C-alpha cells in the first residue's frame, strides 16, 4: 500500500494547471480529493510520475446560484454541498445524495469535480448529474467547452474529457418538484449496491416531468429517458411506476461482485428505484 515515486505540483490557476498537464503529458494526472486516485496509486494500479494538485486554485471553489442556474466549482467538497444553505433551498437532492457518500472524514476532502470526472461507476454524483441534466465545463489548451453529463461517460474510467483537459465546474438548472436519492449499501463508506436519483414535477394528480438515473449498476451511470417518460402524464399508478422501473432496469447491466450476483442486483435496483420514485412523488 505504498505508491511509486511521483513529482507533486500545486499550481495556483486553471491556466497553470492546464499548461502543466500539457507539458507533463500522459504520466501526469490532476488530483482533487484523491479518494479514488490515491488508493489506485497505493495499489500500484495507477503508476503516475506527476500529480497536479488543484487545491490551491481558488477559481475552482464555490457555489453560485444565479437566475435558477446553479454552478458549482469542481473543487467544492461534499461537506460544502451538505452545509450550503442556498444550495439546500435550490437543489436539496445534492445534500441528500452527498450525505450518503462515505463518511464525514471523506466528505471534508472529497470533491464534486473529482467524483464526476473520474468515471468511477461506483461514484454517486455522476448518476445524480445525469438526472439533473447537468453540464460539465472542461478547460484545455484550446479553451473551454461544455459537455452534458448524459454524454460524458463512455465506460468505466473512460469519459469525454480529453487527457489534457480539466473539469472545472458543474452547472445545472435548479430542479423543480420532488426529489429523492435512494441508495442501498453494505455499510458506511461503501459504494452503492444499487442507487437511484429521481426528480418528479407534478401538477395536481399528474406527473408533468420526471428524470431517472441509476448508479453502480453498469460501467457508467445509467440515465433512462424512457423511465422518466413512463411517469409523465400519469398519476403514478402502479402500472406507470412498473413501466418506469422496467424501462430503467432495461438500461442497467450490473456485474457480479462481493455485493452479490446479478439476479440480486437487478431485483434490488427495482426495489430502490421504486422507493425513490415514491419518495420523490410524495415530495413533489
Amino acid at each position, binding site marked *: *500500500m*505504498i505508491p*511509486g*515515486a511521483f513529482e507533486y505540483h500545486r499550481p495556483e490557476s486553471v491556466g497553470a494547471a492546464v499548461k502543466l498537464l500539457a507539458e507533463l503529458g500522459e504520466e501526469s494526472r490532476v488530483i482533487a480529493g484523491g479518494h479514488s486516485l490515491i488508493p489506485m496509486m497505493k495499489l*500500484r494500479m495507477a503508476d503516475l510520475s506527476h500529480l497536479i494538485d488543484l487545491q490551491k486554485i481558488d477559481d475552482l471553489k464555490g457555489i453560485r446560484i444565479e437566475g435558477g442556474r446553479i454552478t458549482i466549482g469542481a473543487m467544492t467538497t461534499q461537506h460544502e454541498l451538505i452545509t450550503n444553505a442556498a444550495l439546500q433551498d435550490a437543489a436539496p437532492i445534492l445534500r441528500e445524495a452527498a450525505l450518503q457518500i462515505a*463518511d464525514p472524514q471523506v466528505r471534508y476532502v472529497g470533491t464534486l469535480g473529482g467524483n464526476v470526472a473520474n468515471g468511477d461507476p461506483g461514484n454517486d454524483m455522476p448518476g445524480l448529474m445525469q438526472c439533473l441534466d447537468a453540464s460539465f465545463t472542461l478547460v484545455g489548451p484550446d479553451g473551454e467547452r461544455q459537455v452534458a453529463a448524459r454524454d460524458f461517460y463512455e465506460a468505466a474510467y473512460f469519459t469525454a474529457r480529453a487527457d489534457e483537459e480539466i473539469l472545472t465546474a458543474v452547472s445545472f438548472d435548479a430542479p423543480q418538484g420532488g426529489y429523492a436519492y435512494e441508495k*442501498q449499501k*453494505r*455499510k*458506511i*463508506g*461503501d*459504494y452503492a*449496491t444499487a442507487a437511484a436519483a429521481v426528480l418528479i414535477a407534478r401538477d395536481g394528480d399528474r406527473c408533468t416531468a420526471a428524470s431517472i438515473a441509476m448508479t453502480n449498476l453498469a460501467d457508467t451511470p445509467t440515465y433512462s429517458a424512457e423511465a422518466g417518460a413512463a411517469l409523465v402524464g400519469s398519476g403514478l399508478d402502479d402500472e406507470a411506476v412498473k413501466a418506469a422501473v422496467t424501462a430503467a432496469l432495461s438500461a442497467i447491466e450490473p456485474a457480479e461482485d*462481493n*455485493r*452479490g*450476483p446479478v*439476479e*440480486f442486483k437487478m*431485483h*434490488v435496483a427495482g*426495489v*430502490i428505484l421504486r422507493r425513490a420514485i415514491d419518495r420523490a412523488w410524495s415530495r413533489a
Partner: protein
Amino acid sequence: MNEMTPPKNERSAALKGLGTARKRVEDLRFTQGKGNYVDDIQQPGMLFGDFVRSPYAHARVKSINAEAALALPGVVAVLTAKDLEPLSLHWMPTLAGDKQMVLADGKVLFQGQEVAFVIAEDRYIAADAVELVEVDYEERPVLVDPMKAELPDAPVLREDIADTLEGAHGPRRHPNHIFTWEQGDKAATEAVIAEAPVVAEEMVYYHRTHPCPLETCGCVASMDKVNGKLTVWGTFQAPHVVRTVASLLSGIAEHNIRIISPDIGGGFGNKVGVYPGYVCSIVASIVTGKPVKWIEDRMENLMSTAFARDYWMKGKIAATADGKITGLWCHTTADHGAFDACADPTKFPAGFMNICTGSYDIPTAYLAVDGIYTNKAPGGVAYRCSFRVTEAAYFIERMIEVLAIKLGMDAAELRAKNFIRKDQFPYNSALGWEYDSGDYHTAWDKALKAVDYDGLRREQAERLEAFKRGETRKLMGIGLTHFTEIVGAGPVKNCDILGMGMFDSCEIRIHPTGSAIARLGTISQGQGHATTFAQILASETGIPADDITIEEGDTDTAPYGLGTYGSRSTPVAGAATALAGRKIRAKAQMIAAYLLEVHDNDIEWDVDRFVVKGAPERFKTMKEIAYAAYNQAIPGVEPGLEAVSYYDPPNMTYPFGAYICVLDIDVDTGEAEVRKFYALDDCGTRINPMIIEGQVHGGLTEALAIAMGQEIAYDEIGNVKTGTLMDFFLPTAWETPNYTTDYTETPSPHHPIGAKGVGESPNVGGVPCFSNAVNDAFRAFGLTHTQMPHDHWRIWKTAHDLGLHA
C-alpha cells in the same frame, strides 16, 4: 495510631478494588494519541523490510531474479529461501506441530505467500524494490474446496510431507489430510441416534474470517553485535513463548534475547502465532547488524497472517419426542489452509471443539475433526475466543434451533428443558470436560423476563400476519443463545504449547512508601490489565489500585508466562496475582505482629491494615508495614516486601451467558436491522463492571461483523476476494446497534477470587445469537438453516428461495 480510623466502607472504596467501575488507566494515553505501538518504534539506522508475495494460490517457483531490485539505490539485500536454508530457517515450526515455509521453497501454496524479503534503507524504496524482483512461476492446479481434497484428481499440496503417514496428531490418510481427532463414544452415540424418535441433522458452516486488530502484525528486530543481544519489539500476544521459540530456532541463548510487546492495538488471536516476517526481520538484522522494521499493511494482514474458523460442522442431534436431548454427533471438516498454523494447546488439534455439547446435559456424544490442507492462507486461530470455542458454540446453538424446528417446539423452552442443572455442578460432560460452576436456569429466566420474551413472540406472530396480508415487507427475527465457554488454558497436565506448560505468573514489589509495581506474564492488547490487575491487588493487599503500577510485555523484566489469548489472563495470571498478593499479606502479618508486639494469630486483616483482635484502636496499615519491612530490623524476617507466584490452574473456567437479539429483515433488499440486543453474562466474580461492559460491547460488535458479513472469501482459483476493508466488513459506529448488558454472578469454585474471564464471551455468544435471529425470521416459511455470513444478498437469496418475492 491516634488517627480516627475511617469506616470500613470508606477505606474499602478508597482502594478501588474488586467490583469497582474504575476508569481505565490506559485510556489517558490512547485517547490523546500517545500510545506507543510497534510501528512507533524508531531506532537509529533502522532498515525496512517488505515482502515479495505470490500472486498465485499454487505454483512452482522456477526462479527468482533480484538483480534489478539490488541495483536500486537504497536496497541493502534481498533474502530468498536459498539464503535462509544454510541457517535452517527457510522453514519454521508452527504452534500446531506442522512446519511452514518462511520464504517460498520451490513452490507457493497460497495467494500472498511470502516469496522474498527485500531490505532497504527506506520503506518506500523497499516497496519499489519489491516490484523489481522477478519471479518465474509455473501455475499448478488449485485446491480451494476442502471437501475435494481427497478426490483422486486432487493436487498434492504439501509435497514436502506427501509420504509422511504419521503427523503431529496421529495417522494421515492422504497427502492433503492433516489429522483426525476423535472424542467421545462413537458407537454409543450412533446407537442412540439410530434408535431416537427424533433426530435433526444439519451441515453448519462457520465461514472463514479474520481478526482485524487496529495495528497489523509487525516487528522491529535489533541485533547488537557488541553485546550479542537480540531485542525484538513486536505484535506478540505471548512474548515469552516468542523468546523461547526464537532461541530454539536461532540458537541464540535465551538470556540474550529480549522480546518486548509495547502497545499492540488489539490482537484477537491474530498475534499469537509466529510469522515469516518476524524470522526474516531477525535474520536481516543479524546479517546487516542494523535494526530492521517490518510492518504488514492491511491487505497483507487479511491475506496472509492467521485467519480464523473455516469449519464445516455436520451435526446430528437426537431427542425424545418431548424434547429431551439424548445424543449429539458431529463431524467437522477443518480447512487449515496451506500449513497447520493453529495456535491450540498441543494435545488439542481442534482446540476445545469438544465443548460442543454446550450448556446442555447431553449424556452421549461423539466428535470427529478432520484437518485438511487447501491452497489458502494458514492459521485457524481463535479470533476473540478460546480455542475453537466459538465454532463449538455456533454449532450447538444452531443444532438446538434445528432440533426445535423438528420438534415443533419453542427454542427457549427446549433449551431450558436440557440445561445442566445447578445441582449437577461440577458437571462432567460426555466429551470429557469438568464444568466448574453454573446456574443456567436462573440466567435464562432473567433474560427471557428482561426482554419480555412472550411479548416478543406475540409481536412476531402479529408481524407475520401483517406480512402475509401484504401490509409490511419486514419480518421479525428473535435470536436466542445460551452459551458456555471453556477458557483459562490451562492446567499444565494437559495444556502446553510446543511443550511449554500453560501456567502464568505475577511478581510484586511493594515500595517502602507503600506503593507497588506488579509484573505479569500476560500482555494487554486492550483488555485493561493495568486497571484490573491493580484492582485485584488492591483488594488483596490493601494498597490503593491507584498506587500500583502494572507492567507487562518485556521479557527482561516480566516473569515467564504464556501470554494473553483464550480469555486466560484473569483465570490464570489473575489467580497468580491474587496469590502473590496473599504472600505479601502473609509476610505483612508477621511484620505487623512484631510491630504491635502480639502473636501473629492475635491480629486480623481489616481492608488495608492488620488490627489486634478485640482492640481495633491498635493496628498497622499496609503503608506502615511496607516502610517497616525495608527500614526496621525485624528478627527472623528478611528485609523487603516482594512476592512471586506461578499459577498452574487446577481446571479451566466456564463462563456462560444468555443473549437475545431482535432484528427486522427487509425481505426485498436483504437488509437486517438489529433493534434490540440483550446480553447477560456470568463471568463469575466481577472485577470491574465498566471494563466488562466495554468488553461485551466490543465483542458483540465483532460478533455482529462476523455473523452479518465479515469473511475471507476465495474464488475458484484461490484469489482472495475480500482483501481490503471495502469488502471485508468492519462495522463503524453507524452499523453498530445499542446493547443492553446484564449479569448474574456464579463464582468459579477453584479460582482464588472466583473470576472466570469475559473478554471473549460476547463473540462466542454473539455470533450464534445474530445468526439465530436471521434464521428465526424465516422459520415460519419453512427455513431450517441458512449459512453465514448473513450479508444483504445472502439474506435476499434466502427470502427469494422461500418464494417471498413472488
